[in-house]
């Protein structure tokens, strides 16, 4: 019997190696796999490259992982937001590398990695500082830059419901980067609010088919999120 549901966080995190590229889903607080990030902090892997939309806020979660010196580089679209204090400190001290990628290019590079597309041309960032040093080619009379796929060793994502095959649904704006990142990592780990029996998610309603998911752990966010 296929059963991707793991019993505890240690099992969920098993085998994440130093030097890994870790894709972390979520946009704002929604769809952010908080429990898995805590699990990764606990697990101990270091020298990580983190791919996420933001560079963490406050001193918990991703910010905490960075504060502990475990993140060598962050690839994101929006490093500076209210509360990105840890990133600011580390960046000013030259203790963390940064690659800024336009949000849509970030999503498309991750999608490309999952879809077997090693590179693609996009109009985004052509003629700007973020397009500098990139191959430029004209299509339909407009300059486009060549962007490459951005795969992960590990993806940490948050879902709403999951079954034992790893089929996932999301809630509200909780899809964001999660279904895209799920496709692009060698090891995709999902935290889910609900574990449901196989077949309980209608075939039409599956957003992430289990083929993309390796491990699922139930994480109940509590009443306000139920």
């Amino acid at each position: 019997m296929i059963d991707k549901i793991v019993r505890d966080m240690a099992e969920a995190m098993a085998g994440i190696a130093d030097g890994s590229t870790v894709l972390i889903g979520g946009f704002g607080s929604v769809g952010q796999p908080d429990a898995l990030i805590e699990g990764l902090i606990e697990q101990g892997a270091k020298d990580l490259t983190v791919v996420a939309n933001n560079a963490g806020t406050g001193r918990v979660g991703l910010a905490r992982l960075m504060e502990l010196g475990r993140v060598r580089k962050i690839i994101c679209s929006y490093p500076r937001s209210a509360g990105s204090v840890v990133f600011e400190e580390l960046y000013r001290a030259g203790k963390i590398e940064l690659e800024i990628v336009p949000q849509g290019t970030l999503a498309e590079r991750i999608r490309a990695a999952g879809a077997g597309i090693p590179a693609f041309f996009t109009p985004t960032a052509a003629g700007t500082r973020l397009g500098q040093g990139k191959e430029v080619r004209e299509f339909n009379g407009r300059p486009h830059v060549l962007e490459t796929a951005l795969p992960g060793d590990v993806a940490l994502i948050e879902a709403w419901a999951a079954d034992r095959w790893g089929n996932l649904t999301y809630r509200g704006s909780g899809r964001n980067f999660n279904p895209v990142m799920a496709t692009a990592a060698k090891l995709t780990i999902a935290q889910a609010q609900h574990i449901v029996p196989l077949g309980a998610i209608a075939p039409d309603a599956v957003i992430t088919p289990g083929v993309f998911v390796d491990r699922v752990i139930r994480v109940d966010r509590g009443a306000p999120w139920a």
Partner: protein
Amino acid sequence: MPFDRTAMAARVAEDIPEGWFVNLGIGMPTMVADHIPPEREVIFHSENGILGMGPAPAPDAVDPWLINAGKQPVTLVPGASLFHHADSFAIIRGGHLDLCVLGAFEVAANGDIANWATSENDSAPAVGGAMDLTAGAKRLWVLMEHTTKDGRPKLVETCSYPLTAAGVVSRVYTNLAVLEVVKGRGFVLAEAAPGVSVEEIRAKTAAPVWLPA
């Protein structure tokens, strides 16, 4: 009397016809939605995977799973749809949005926009979805104050800040005026705010301001 922020947002809303799919940037542009009359169906897009955003919820009706690109709680209207980030930016990059309204640091007479990095020395600026929206939307309108707080013009001949995208702005709404950005010509005055003279607008614009032919 120049437009105040509410009047500026309302002025943009006036120009958005029924049926358009629209993305509103963070800050003042977000206020535009409040001025679309309820009977005029305009469909709002959010980068994080929403079409059909409604107004902010009452404080006791907040759904913690539903936020907009500015990370504020929102609602959905009947007919709304949800999708992931790659699909959301396919909508943006693929030219499916009729309009994007953004703020800016500077807009140049050739339609260049600078709205993400405040200087060449800012090494960690937050670009977010700005470059995708400016490159992808069918129309890009800028909503901003005509000058900086210390009185420096924000409508310029050439942007001094790093560009977000080149040659994409088609209209600028400020507290002083509405200006078209016309290829090969530059800023063309469409409307002055009540009581604001063409001379004042010209004095506060660092590029020629043309009158409509």
